[in-house]
């Protein structure tokens, strides 16, 4: 049998709290789990929103100032009330049509496969989140807790 590659570790920082930015860290972490690569994701600042229990409805994508939308919307239109909800609805329709997992599904996959999810305690307090606002089964800690994993990681990413 071919020699197995050496053991690797990965750590990721998730900083952004929009629907689109929630995907890359969760996709990479759940894939890393299939490769037996132990992974930690540290959710800080707006990234905490990815861990909200109501992430299904709370995560949105804004057309305002976002020229990369599949169907770009001029800023003057994007600023109209309701446009963010409309863009989010369209994005979710595309996600469903293409068989892409939802954010809660990816979070579940990560948790089932042992990905370590850390909520930044400082930003939890700063933004006034309560533990019951966030999903169960996560760790709470600060930069030192993240650095403990990051310092022995072969792959470190920030989103």
């Amino acid at each position, binding site marked *: 049998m071919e020699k197995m590659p050496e053991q690797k570790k990965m750590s990721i920082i998730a900083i952004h709290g929009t629907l689109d930015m929630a995907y890359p860290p969760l996709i990479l972490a759940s894939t890393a789990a299939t490769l037996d690569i132990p992974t930690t994701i540290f959710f800080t600042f707006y990234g905490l929103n990815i861990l909200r229990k109501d992430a299904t409805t709370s995560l949105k994508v804004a057309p305002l100032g976002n020229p990369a939308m599949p169907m770009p919307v001029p800023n003057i239109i994007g600023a109209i009330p309701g446009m963010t909800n409309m863009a989010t609805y369209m994005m979710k329709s595309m996600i469903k049509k293409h*068989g892409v997992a939802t954010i809660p599904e990816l979070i579940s996959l990560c948790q089932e496969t042992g990905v370590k999810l850390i909520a930044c305690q400082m930003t939890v307090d700063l933004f006034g989140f309560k533990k019951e606002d966030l999903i169960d089964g996560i760790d709470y800690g600060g930069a030192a807790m993240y650095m403990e994993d990051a310092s022995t990681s072969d792959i470190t990413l920030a989103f």
Partner: protein
Amino acid sequence: MPLNISKTLDASGLGCPLPIVKTKKEIDNLSSGQILEVISTDPGSKNDMTAWCKRTGNELIEFAEQGGKFQFYVKKG
């Protein structure tokens, strides 16, 4: 010689990373040497499955593509 398939996983219609995640789950239930057939429609899964097998020590013994469907035959390492 026809392949002796132990299990078939239909991942049609699913996008990255689900075909790989589901493949991993099925492979874990097989014994070394058994063959898993995976069907997918995600064009990215062609390169993904090759890379995943290489990295995990499983063997992609056969691949077929027909009408937008991809068939992978993975032998557990």
